[in-house]
């Protein structure tokens, strides 16, 4: 069976597909979020060193990883749009930015609330924290740069350049705890394994999956509005079901 993979590169067909996909990501996200909270608070034991405070990890680590991952996906889409001039890829980049920025903020916020009881400071100018703050500024820069340019195609290209250059920061965040002597601890979960209790791992991975699915659902929902706004002069927009009233 021949499948035309490029069919969904057209905003008109992707609009419908995205609409169908949203609930398939949103509901599992909501269920996994509740399961993750349950395991994180009622199954995972109290930590020997950090007592109950460590439970912030179940939000902090997934949000931090996703803030970096979403940035790379965003930069990848933006680069595709820049190179192949595909409108939909640029729209996906625009759609991912606010969610990425919120995850970067959640990472910094939960980090501050964890740092205060453990390190005695809300904030330190440590390599990990500083590079994550720069990530938040890169997201905000991308959003405001695009918002300041009226012509969407020019906004796409300008944003893409910023996103691509800024992606250098992601490996810096990731390796900062190895390259520099940071107050922030090293990675708890490595490819070689982890010292975490099994139920702590389950809670963290469940929350990670929940936030990942949430990010996909909300970006698909947001990109539908972006598609409609940008394609409003196309014939297909006047023919969608939502316009039949």
């Amino acid at each position, binding site marked *: 069976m021949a499948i035309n993979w490029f069919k969904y590169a057209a905003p008109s067909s992707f609009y419908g597909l995205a609409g169908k996909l949203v609930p398939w990501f949103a509901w599992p996200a909501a269920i996994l979020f509740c399961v993750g909270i349950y395991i994180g608070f009622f199954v995972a034991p109290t930590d020997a060193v950090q007592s*109950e*405070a460590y439970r912030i990890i179940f939000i902090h680590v997934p949000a931090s990883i996703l803030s970096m991952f979403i940035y790379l996906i965003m930069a990848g889409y933006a680069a595709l749009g820049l190179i192949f001039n595909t409108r939909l890829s640029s729209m996906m980049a625009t759609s991912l930015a606010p969610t990425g920025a919120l995850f970067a903020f959640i990472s910094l916020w939960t980090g501050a609330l964890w740092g205060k009881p453990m390190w005695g400071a809300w904030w330190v100018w440590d390599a990990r924290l500083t590079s994550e703050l720069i990530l938040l500024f890169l997201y905000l820069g991308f959003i405001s740069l695009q918002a300041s340019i009226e012509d969407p195609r020019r906004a796409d290209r300008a944003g893409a350049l910023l996103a691509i250059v800024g992606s250098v920061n992601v490996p810096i965040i990731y390796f900062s705890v190895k390259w520099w002597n940071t107050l922030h601890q090293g990675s708890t979960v490595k490819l070689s394994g982890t010292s975490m209790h099994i139920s702590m791992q389950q809670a963290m991975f469940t929350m990670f999956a929940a936030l990942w699915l949430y990010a996909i659902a909300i970006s698909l929902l*947001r990109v539908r509005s972006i598609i409609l706004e940008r394609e409003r002069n196309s014939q297909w927009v006047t023919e969608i079901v939502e316009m039949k009233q």
Partner: protein
Amino acid sequence: MNWLGFFEMKGYAWYIWGSYGVTLLIIMVEILLVVHKRKVVLQQLRLIRDAEIKE
């Protein structure tokens, strides 16, 4: 189960509920904004269409 003790989180209540509370708030506000944005865009499209029909 002792719920009061649970919420106290051995003295870390503000830090833990501050983390989870703000995260939940951010997610809920984002959902509301995205849903609202969609309504506004569709409304604008209908207004433009109706204006064109009148012409």
